[in-house]
Each structure stands twice: as structure tokens, then as C-alpha cells.
């Protein structure tokens, strides 16, 4: 019973860590926190990077480790590359938080990598799909920049990969 409680407590501590670049969502919302394994005093969190060169990876790993330590565990973080993270793992709650924050969540399922195809991205402010892409790359590797031609809102779109 104690072990089960510790397991839940370790997960909750790690899961609450916000993403340093998109602080409206947690590592659990994004689906990059894969699992937390507790063995006695030791908690091992397994985390997947979003992009190969994501500069936030080390910051995330340090924050997760610190959160587990604050919860009273000897903490370790393992980086998991395989299977590769996909935007499909962002939870429904995470998508809603992104939208409320002004970032359009990824549209559709990953895997259909149409080379020159375009997707309809609803505006996170007015929900109309009258949007246009401004830039394939945005403020971070995981986002593109869009603009709504109805309400005029410029916004980040979380790319579907």
C-alpha cells in the first residue's frame, strides 16, 4: 500500500512540472513524461524529447529531477528516444490548455506527412479556420506562426509531427 502511494506521489510530483517554453502545459499534458518508477527511496522518471535539438530538454530533465527530490525521493531522470514522441501523445486536457493560452493545438493525427499539403488550423481566439501561415518555423522548434484573417489574431500553431 505504501509502495502504491509512493508511486502515485512520485508521478504527481513529476507530472506537475510545467514545460519551460510553453508553461501553460505540464510535462504530463504534453505526453513527454512517460513513466515514473519508484523502488524504495529511488524514483526514476523516464522522459522523451519533443525534437532532436530541443534546447529545453535539459531544463525539463533538471526540473523533473528537482520536483522528485522535493517530494522526498532520490531522483534520477532517463531520456527515452524510442518510440519517438509524437504530438498524438498530447492529452485532450493539454490541447484545451494550449488553445486557452492562445496556441493552436496540432490538427489531425501525426504520420500523414504530406510534403506540400496544407492543413486547416482553427484560430485559437475565434475558432474560424480562415487562417494563413506566416512562417513554417516559430518561436520554438515545435511551433509555426499563423494569422487569422477574420479576427486578425497572430498565433503560434503547435506543429503536428
Amino acid at each position: 500500500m505504501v509502495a502504491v502511494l509512493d508511486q502515485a506521489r512520485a508521478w504527481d510530483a513529476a507530472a506537475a512540472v510545467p514545460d519551460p517554453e510553453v508553461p501553460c502545459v505540464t510535462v504530463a499534458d504534453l505526453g513527454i513524461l512517460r513513466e515514473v518508477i519508484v523502488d524504495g527511496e529511488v524514483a526514476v522518471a523516464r522522459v522523451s524529447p519533443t525534437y532532436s535539438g530541443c534546447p529545453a530538454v535539459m531544463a525539463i530533465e533538471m526540473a523533473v529531477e528537482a520536483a522528485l527530490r522535493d517530494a522526498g525521493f532520490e531522483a534520477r531522470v532517463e531520456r527515452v528516444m524510442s518510440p519517438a514522441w509524437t504530438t498524438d501523445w498530447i492529452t485532450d486536457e493539454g490541447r484545451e490548455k494550449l488553445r486557452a493560452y492562445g496556441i493552436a493545438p496540432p490538427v489531425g493525427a501525426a504520420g500523414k506527412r504530406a510534403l506540400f499539403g496544407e492543413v486547416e488550423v482553427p484560430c485559437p481566439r475565434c475558432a474560424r479556420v480562415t487562417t494563413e501561415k506566416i512562417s513554417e518555423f516559430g518561436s520554438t522548434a515545435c511551433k509555426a506562426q499563423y494569422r487569422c484573417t477574420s479576427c486578425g489574431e497572430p498565433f503560434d500553431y503547435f506543429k503536428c509531427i
Partner: protein
Amino acid sequence: MAMQAAVLELADDHLILGHRLSEWCGHAPMLEEDLALPNMALDLIGTARALYDYAARLEGKGRSEDDLAFLRVEREYRNLLLCERPNGDFAQTMLRQLYFAAFMEPYWQAATGSSDEVIRGVAGKAVKEMAYHIRHAGEWVIRLGDGTDESAAKMRAAVEELHRFTGEMFEESDASAALEGMLPRRADLRAAWDRVIGMVFSEALLEVPEVRFPQTGGRQGLHGEQLGHLLAEMQYLQRAYPGATW
């Protein structure tokens, strides 16, 4: 140690091209590209880090990913000559990116079925990033090739300059030739590469040129003089202040 050598070759390709792209940071012709080029550089350098880390572990001599990147000399680098070509103008940079990404996308796709777990992990991430690079660079090649007289002339000059370096991508090195099942066979990717390049070129109103004198040598450590200049800049800090950290 064939696997270690082959992983190091791949890592060198990604680091050198990533460094080249990073040279554009602050110099791109518009803000959009000033974001795009370093973002693409980050993808490549991120992949390089994972590969150097693996190569260092396979070697087992206590060298780190940083040692492999910063403390090897020009002749020890085994990158493709295409990756070290100078940025030139914007047309050359975008064409070089398209050539490389159109090869690496099917390469990583095939590598997701590798018998090596680390390679599978790296491939799963990189294949998606390469698809983005193809799209971004491909759109520019089309826009410039089918653009003004000046942009079209620059795009044709870029093809003339760079196409002779593409054949090297499809050749196995002594190391990679021995790794059936662990890394994809390069010659098998020719059709996929031809298809993407053909599609982009036909929209860009460009001709695939006949190459009379293909340029190779990177896998033997025989580079153009430009690589030395690149390394001098990239490695300066670790050479001047060995072991510096921050």
C-alpha cells in the same frame, strides 16, 4: 568497430551541415528565415549529439560527444562533401538542404526498422524533422527556380555548383558497407531521392544535370579547404581554453 565508425560518419554529416546553417543566424534575408535556418540547424545538431554520444559509448575509450565534435582535426572528419559546402547565396543553401533532407528522410525511414535500438530511436525523431526540411527547402527551390530571371539564374547556378556532390550520399563507406540490417543500404534510397528531386525540379523549372565529374572523398577524410575554416571557428573555444564549460 564498423558500427562506431559508421555512426561517427552520420554524426559528422549532421554537425557540419548544422553548423553551416547556424552561420545564417542574424544574416538571413528576412525574419522568417532567420527563425527557420537556426531551427533546422538545431534539428541537425540535436541528431548529431545523439549520434556522437552513441559513437563515444561504442568506442568505450572515455571520450565524450564534445571530444568527438571539438577535438578531432579535419582529416578525422568523415562528413559528406555536400555538407561542408559553403552557404554561398540563399539559393545554394536551400538547394543543399533539399538534397540532404531528400536523402536523409528515406534513410531514417528505413532506419526505423534497424536492428539497433539507438538508431531506431534517433531515426524515429529525425525522419519527421527531415520531412519538414524537404518541405521548407523544396518550397524555396520552387519559388526561386520559377521566380524572377535573377532568382532562376541563381537557382540554376546552385544546381550547377552542387549537383556533383550528391552522388557521394549513395556510396557506402568501408565502415557502413559491413552493417547489413543495422543501417539502411544507401544505394536503395536512390529512387526515393530521385522522385522528390524530380518533383521539385519540375515545378521549379530546373533540369537535373548530367554530372561528368562526381566529387567524393569526405568518407576518407579528404575535404575541401572550406572544412578547415569551419572547424577553426567551431572548435576555437575548446582549443583555446581546453575543457572550458559554462
